[in-house]
């Protein structure tokens, strides 16, 4: 049986490319413990399961797991956007204001760029300044084409590049609890955000 497991491990190494690093390490972990999966004990639906690394507006690297214990309000935007994104940013600021008034500490407001090529940490910092989204509670993330597509799929945000500077995208603010599980979504612009605010307050400390 042991030999079999070793052979399996070798075979697993052989087939997969670097994009599947996580997959490989999981495979090996499992093999090492004779078929008992030793994955970390996150909720199955938690975004902490996503192991991709993002750059923050301060140029630091971060994974969702690093945000454990925080309630997250997440929106996907891009900085050269002229129509919806400023309004989305305003919606986020508005939500933040109402939640902060309740002295909620463990909440982060996360803006993920759907244009990772253009939106460098510098540009994201500037966007934060321009729209007064500044402070520790604000987090801007730059990923890659691939990781952004994957995350957009988690929150069911649709987007497409229609020209180098312009994307069409859905306007959704998603709320995740302190275990990384999505609990609420608000769709559209300038909609009544009462429900979203109430949800964040309910989930946070």
């Amino acid at each position, binding site marked *: 049986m042991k030999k079999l497991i070793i052979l399996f491990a070798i075979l697993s190494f052989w087939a997969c490319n670097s994009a*599947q690093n996580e*997959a490989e390490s999981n*495979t090996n972990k499992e093999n090492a413990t004779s078929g008992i999966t030793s994955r970390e004990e996150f909720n199955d639906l938690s975004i902490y399961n996503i192991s991709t690394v993002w750059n923050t507006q301060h140029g630091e690297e971060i994974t969702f797991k690093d945000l454990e214990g925080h309630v997250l309000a997440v929106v996907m935007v891009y900085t050269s956007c002229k129509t*919806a994104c400023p309004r989305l940013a305003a919606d986020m600021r508005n939500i933040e204001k109402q939640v902060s008034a309740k002295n909620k500490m463990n909440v982060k407001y996360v803006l993920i760029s759907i244009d990772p090529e253009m939106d460098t940490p510098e540009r994201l910092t500037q966007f934060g300044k321009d729209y007064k989204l500044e402070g520790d509670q604000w987090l801007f993330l730059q990923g890659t084409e691939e990781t952004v597509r994957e995350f957009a799929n988690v929150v069911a945000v649709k987007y497409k590049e*229609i020209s180098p500077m312009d994307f*069409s995208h859905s306007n959704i603010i998603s709320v995740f609890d302190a275990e990384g599980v999505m609990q609420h979504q608000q769709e559209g612009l300038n909609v009544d955000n009462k429900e979203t605010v109430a949800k964040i307050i309910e989930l946070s400390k």
Partner: protein
Amino acid sequence: MLRYFKIFLFFVIVPFNIWAQEVEMQLVSGGIYTPLYGSTEESQVEIPGFFMDAKPVTHEQFQLFVLQYPEWRKSNVRRLYADESYLNSWKGDFGVPRQLKNSPVNNVSWYAAKAYCECQDKRLPTTDEWEFVAMASEKSVDAREDSLFNQRIVSSYEKPKTFLKEVGKTTPNYYGIYDLHGLVWEWVYDFNSIIITEESRSNNSTDNNLFCAGGAVSANDLMNYAAFMRYAIRSSVKARNTMSNMGFRCVKDDTKVLSSKLIY
């Protein structure tokens, strides 16, 4: 019993795997065309040449994949990446019903399909690539104006349980590719890029409050009803969803095309 089963799988199936991974692919010479939806401002897209799996991925092929990658077994897969009906025709982690071995794998999520392709050093096709190949009939690279061709596709969408059929049993298209129509819908990499939503269905128009620049992407070939159905299906699913009538196949860049592009 399980142990014997595993040994059996190992000696019988895994050595097979070494060449079974080498599934037949066909070269799709690229071109320029106008897709139904979501094209750029110029409305035409250029498709560089690429290789596409000649047939959809089958249950048997997917079984080999989960053998190697335990995290994609039914009992292990995270709910974030696949919903409850993932591989639901299988009995347990490896139990593919014998009559389905050569049928297209179904009830797989976008994440699972993407991981499968990456593990074969391939990728999922983009919507534009898939649709480009799908407009070819047996004789022509673009049969979208051929009413019989369209009729055949639409009527295949109306047949129930076509996912039970075996792959590769019909006539291949111009590129030698089978079953783009007639068995299952197929996942594409950017399925979530097209904005036809519940909202636009209920409003009969794109709601610009919901989508930044939403009006820029709209149908320009409403004649093509079959393609319209595919776009509508894609826009209605989520990446973790699994459906009995949704499978996938993989593609690979034509490295020759890419390197020759670099030279120019």
